[in-house]
């Protein structure tokens, strides 16, 4: 794992703050919706295979169907949990520090002076659960911090905006 095995490098302390635990159910709802759609597509493919006679063996079709449903269920249940476990963030005076990912774990560092603007975003599921997403924009694309509690996200955005209000020579 990424965790400090060789001790912290100066200027590269591990980010510590986890996301709001309510992010897990929120992501389960959104992942579940996508998984339902995936299962529907999978069923449609299986029906076509059956109708065209490419696969006429019913037990095999049922096995394929169950495989799809199991995969969707596992992804919906464990995916958000694993991602939440990997998510860490920190807003330091000079840098924004993020760690995220499910299989591939990515550490992202953005100097505060490079931030051009900050968005506060709330989807319908997030609003219901009292969550929000912060989007940090730079001249080279944007990065998100999802699953923050809405009460916390407001001050975080204000803090980034205040810290970033420095002359930038892009």
């Amino acid at each position, binding site marked *: 794992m990424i965790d400090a095995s060789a001790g912290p490098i*100066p*200027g*590269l302390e591990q980010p510590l703050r986890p996301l709001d635990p309510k992010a897990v159910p929120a992501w389960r709802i959104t992942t579940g919706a996508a998984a339902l759609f995936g299962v529907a597509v999978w069923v449609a493919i299986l029906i076509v295979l059956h109708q065209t006679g490419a696969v006429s063996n019913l037990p095999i079709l049922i096995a394929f169907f169950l495989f799809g449903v199991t995969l969707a269920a596992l992804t919906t249940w464990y995916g958000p949990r694993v991602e939440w476990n990997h998510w860490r963030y920190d807003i330091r005076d*000079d840098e924004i520090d993020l760690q995220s990912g499910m299989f591939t*774990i990515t550490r*992202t*560092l953005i100097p505060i002076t490079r931030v051009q603007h900050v968005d506060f975003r709330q989807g319908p599921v997030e609003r219901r659960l009292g969550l929000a997403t912060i989007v940090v924009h*730079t001249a*080279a694309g944007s990065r998100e911090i999802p699953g923050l509690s809405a009460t916390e996200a407001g001050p975080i955005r204000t803090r980034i905006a205040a810290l970033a209000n420095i002359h930038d020579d*892009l």
Partner: protein
Amino acid sequence: MADTPVELAPPGIPSTRPHPGWIISAALSSVRSFIAAFIAIAFSVRDQGIIVITFAMLVPGLLIIGWRSIQWQAMRYSAQDGAISLSTGLLEKNERTIQVERIQSVDTLETPIGRILGVSELQIATAGAAQPITIPAISAGEAERLREWIDASRSGVDGRSADLKQAERPNEPAHSTVVHQMSGTDVLLAGLTAGLIAPALAIAAAAWRLGSDILPESLRQRVPIDPDRLTPASVVALIAAAAAMAWGLSIAGAALSLWNFTVQRAPDSLILNRGLLDRKQNTIPVSRIQAISVVEGVLRQPFGFASVMIESAAKPHGDDESGGARHLFPFVRKRDILRLIEAALPEFSWSDAGIDLHRLPARARSRYLIPVIRDFAIGLVVTCAVLSWLPRVEWWYGLFLLPLLPVWLAFGYLQFRDAGWSLDSNDRLFVQQRSFDRSLVVTRGRRVQVRELSSNPMQRRAHLGSLTLLLATIGGRGTITINHLDHDDGEQLLASLSPHNRPPI
């Protein structure tokens, strides 16, 4: 440097109309786009005598000139109070303003007609994909005045960062000097080694369209392309002819766009001139250059040639150079590169002793080679499966792909061997990487916008990671990637590029 008195900005340019030459060049371009209509009119009145024909031509011509004159009346541009603005439009007024400190590049384009009329088109670009301001016609003298005004207004803006300028440009040239001029031979060689796939595809598509659209049906039936009688010799001859044509076109394209390519260094900016028919001039402030990259194409590297590109956040004029990069030196000998960069952009040069790049650990080699073998195996199986499905061919014909595996593996190995990076005490960052072409990116640590270090489960097992550094450039060329470097090295580089660990500027 800090003691230099701030020059008073010249008064600028009050609200002005573009050069009236625009009416003629714009009218001509409308005539060009309605040429079919003109021919149709002439054709329909061809029996009515010369007076009627002239009249039939003249009326739409005058209408177009009248329309362009009215449009011209409504156009105004100005350069005042640290901003350039352009207003256009008759019914719907449209005014755009660009602050001088936001300007990324000033480009002029001189078409053959414009040269006769003494006007060129001037484009002022800002960062990002936003449309630039285009002054459609401006005389050479006026363009020069505008550029001087921009330079003067900007040095007022940059004045407060004098220390930064001092730090970044230790040996800044005092006045404008011509650094490099491409010879005719170089233009020819550049076209010859430009890479074959893109022009070959373009040729094939064009030839096919030509064949299906223009050639009459009867003639096409006489062309002896009968799949049953196609001999290997005729296939080879056809491919050779297509390749020769692609090469010819590539050379012609290079001649048109790179003719008389000249690089000029002014105190604060680079001025690039090029083109045979359409002459282009790019003025790029040095402080806006995010990085340069030395690209050694597969066809050029063995002969010791390379090209040098400039990466900036401005969209280049026209679409001939994709991805926000411009040629700084389109075709140079490798041994001349350092000397030329030293003269044109000392901010991005390196020491005579070369660059001491950190390399990847030996255990990263398999991470480069295994995906190659895996993808090749998948490709082989799919090919054989498709062949076994087809009539008249055997599945084992697919095995003829096997001799390609060593070539593929060699590329994988070269990608491993060529990857490397270095960050010197001057905050200069060098990253070498290879896809097919080998490229060396030179930038400044403080130019890096976002840094990312990622590791998938396979990499974690070998304590490796992939580092991505993003620069503020258009398109993907500003993305610097080092795949499968030692994870500790990656963290070290992340930390060295942290604002926390760099001395305040």
